[in-house]
Structure formats: structure tokens, C-alpha cells
């Protein structure tokens, strides 16, 4: 664990959520980041696979089904490097809390489920900043599937692991591939020191648990180190200010 990532020696903090699609992690990190922001902290948000620099290449590669396990892994690492160099690292240095929806662990789970060597992909991401907190949203496959299948009409090619030729049936391929990803997450839980959240609980219960963990694990350090918005005197706090 110690040599896996680059230690965070800066004022800011990094909080990440992980889990398969349909685990509810995005809802939770969004609620958490709003809570932190309303507590006065400077908060930023970074999503997996969202760098504008490589966006066009990734989109084309997916559309034309050009990826192999190796290029899929490298392309996502390039995206991650761009977000790290231009966004995550400078903000953490400046003292912000960066909340990330998926982090390098997503690559460790997905790429390895595609057949990429686990040690190779860990080395690939060794430039990543080590998170202060990493939450894993543990979900039974069927729960996640029913959430996803209810919400979208088509499963995407790479999300369903169709590139691996496991099955010609998209739904079956998705089930098998996501099952492999869950197995990878489970096997790295101890190695990575994940805080495991039972994602079958209600949204409110999960959020309460996350906030308690944040306060317990890094609460004092947040108060001491993290950049805060200038205090607004109570009298001039209008409704619009309160909302944002």
C-alpha cells in the first residue's frame, strides 16, 4: 500500500468512491461533497474518464470498437494523468477537498477483469495521489443489475465486456463481466484499506455512515488544514447563498 501511490503531503484531501455501476456511489459522493461545501470547505469534484484532452480519442475508440485490453487500460490512464496533473494535484496543493467518483481502483478492477496483469496496472498508476479516504460500495450483482436495467435501454459494449467475447448475449456478458469486477474489488479491499459501505441500506443510512467516517478519520485535519471560504456573517446569509 505504501509504495502503491504517491503520498499526499499537501494541505488538501482526497476522498474517493468505488463500486460497480448501479451501486449508488455517485449519489453518495455528491451528497457528501455538498455537505462538505456547506460546512465551508473548498470542495472540487472529479469524475472518471472526463478529461477534455483525450475525450475525442476515447469516444472514437469506443464507437469504432478499436480497444484491446492494453489500449483500453492505457487510454484511461492517460485520461487519469491529465486530470491528476491539471486538476486534482493543483487543487489538493491549494488546500481543497477533491471528491472523486471512481479512482485508480476502477482500473485495478476493470482492467484486471479484462486480463491485464494486476502488477502492471498498479505500477501504471503509481503517479496517482494516495486518497485520504476510499469508500467501496458493496452491492449484490442482482441489485446493481436491476437498478441499471431499469434506468437505461441499452447496455454499452465495453461496460458489458463485449470485447472479451464471453457471450454474444449483452445482458449475460454484462452479468459475467461485472461479476468479475466485483471479485476484483473484494480481493483488494484489505490491500487498499477501503471503508466498505453496505449499499443495500437506504440512501440516508449510507450517507450518515459516510459522514461519521469522514469526521472520525480526518475531521480534525480538515479543520486544521483545508481551505475554507471566508466566513459570511449570519445576517447577510440569503436564501440563494444557502442553496449553493
Amino acid at each position, binding site marked *: 500500500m505504501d509504495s502503491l501511490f504517491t503520498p499526499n503531503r499537501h494541505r488538501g484531501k482526497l476522498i474517493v468512491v468505488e463500486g460497480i455501476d448501479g451501486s449508488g456511489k455517485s449519489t453518495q459522493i455528491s451528497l457528501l461533497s455538498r455537505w462538505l461545501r456547506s460546512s465551508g470547505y473548498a470542495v472540487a469534484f472529479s469524475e472518471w474518464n472526463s478529461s477534455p*484532452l483525450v475525450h475525442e480519442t476515447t469516444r*472514437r475508440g469506443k464507437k469504432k470498437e478499436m480497444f484491446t485490453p492494453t489500449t483500453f487500460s492505457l*487510454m484511461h490512464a492517460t485520461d487519469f494523468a491529465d486530470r491528476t496533473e491539471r486538476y486534482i494535484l493543483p487543487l489538493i496543493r491549494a488546500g481543497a477537498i477533491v471528491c472523486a467518483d471512481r479512482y485508480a481502483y476502477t482500473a485495478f478492477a476493470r482492467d484486471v477483469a479484462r486480463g491485464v*496483469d494486476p502488477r502492471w496496472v498498479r505500477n501504471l498508476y503509481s503517479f496517482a495521489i494516495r486518497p485520504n479516504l476510499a469508500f467501496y460500495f458493496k452491492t449484490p450483482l442482482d441489485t446493481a443489475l436491476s437498478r441499471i436495467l431499469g434506468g437505461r435501454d441499452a447496455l454499452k459494449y465495453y461496460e458489458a465486456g463485449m470485447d472479451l467475447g464471453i457471450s454474444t448475449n449483452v445482458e449475460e456478458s454484462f452479468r459475467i463481466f461485472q461479476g468479475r469486477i466485483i471479485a476484483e474489488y473484494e480481493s483488494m479491499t484489505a490491500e487498499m484499506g477501503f471503508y466498505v459501505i453496505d449499499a443495500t441500506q437506504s440512501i440516508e443510512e449510507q450517507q450518515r455512515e459516510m459522514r461519521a467516517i469522514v469526521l472520525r478519520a480526518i475531521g480534525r485535519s480538515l479543520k486544521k488544514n483545508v481551505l475554507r471560504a471566508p466566513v459570511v456573517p449570519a445576517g447577510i446569509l440569503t436564501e440563494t447563498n444557502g442553496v449553493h
Partner: protein
Amino acid sequence: MASTKRNRRRGALPPPLTPYSEPLPGVDTTSLAGKLIVIEGADAVGRSTQVNQLRYWLEQEGHAVLDTGMARSALAGKGIAKAKDGNTLGPVTMTLYYVTDFADRLENEIVPALRAGFVVLTDRYIFSIMARAIARGEDPEWIERVCGFGLVPHAVYYLRARVKDLVSRVVIGRGAFNYWESGMDCHFGDDMYESFVNYQTRLIRTLDHMSKRYAFTPIDASRTPEAIFSELQRRIRSLQLKPVNGTGRAVRRSA
């Protein structure tokens, strides 16, 4: 794993056309009949001139030739060109973008061509990617392992010249310094000339350092293009390329 890596570093390289340290998942590299020849060297040292002439000569001799080079992949070539236009590419991002480009060409062009018995001539290889990363301060062990899926070539011809030769080629031949060839993204000097000199000095030092470990064949590139070409011809002849009746086509399957 760590011990095998260390042994390899001290001892001999794996045989040609096998990966340096990491297998390529899902790619069969067992029955490759062709030859892989790498031309390496700093910017403006004259690599592409030599590759063009070598290709012509080898084809006259009856060999099927694929030539390839950096940022020419179907997947990432355009993206890299666009990213470099913006001058906003961080060093790790640039390195990984080039590795992605290399992996795409290796899997979709180089390996299929080798399977079909082609002579593959490549203008730069993983060594330039690694040297650029190391010259920018990245961890050598990190990038070496990232590039470990590269196949060992039959020969690596390292065109070597002094920085002052490169400077005169840039000034006389091209008339201006290039932002990236000068390493201006890392600001190695106060102006493009100074940055070019410092950056290229680092690159040459890094390539020199790799020369022994990766069994480069150094070629004195301060001579005329004709002299360099005839040395390359002589050395390639000694590789004893067999005329091969290639049947497969070295192109990406249509998507």
C-alpha cells in the same frame, strides 16, 4: 517477478519478438516470422531520411516492408497532434498518450505484419518514449515497466550525433526550433535555443545510458547521409533477412 526483472537487467535480453517483461494480454506473439528493425536517435538526427531510403532498398530486394513511427496510430495519432497544439500536455499525460499510441500500432500493425513475414522498420520505439519521460524527471523504473510489453527487436540502430550537429541541422534544415523538440513544456532554458540544447543533451545522455542494457548498435550520425546509409545497409545485410512469401495483409481489420 522482481527477481526475474533484476536478472534480466543484469543478464541477457529475452529473445527477439518476445516481450521485455510483460505479456500482451489477448495477443498471440508465438509465431512471428518477420523481422523488427528499430531506428532510434534524437530529434533532427536524420532518422526519417534513413527509414525512407531503407524501405525503398529493402523493397527492391524483394522484402515486404511496413514502416511506422510515433503518433501514427489510428487510435491516438490525431488526439496527440491536437493535444500538442494546445501546449497544455503534462509530462505524465504526454508519456501515457504516446504509450497508448505505441500499443495500438504494436497490436494492430506491427504484430500482424510480423506474423505475415514483413520486415517492420520503425522510426523510434519505446526507447524514445522512455527517454522523453526520464528527461522530464519521471521515474525510470516506472516507465520501463509501463513499456515492458514492447517486443524485443532484432536490431536497434541508434543514430548518435552531438547536440551541436543537431542544432546546425535544425537551423539550416528547418529554419526554426520546435516547441516540443526544445522541451519548452518543461522550460529547460530561457529561450528555445537554450532549452533545445539542454533538453537534447538530457535525451542523448538518457539514450546513451540505455544503449548497453537494450543492446543498441550505435551509428555515428555526424557523417553524410550516404555514409550512414551504407553502414545501415551493411549491418542489415548481416541480419540475413530471408525473402519471405508474405500472404497476410498488415492492416487493421475494418471496424
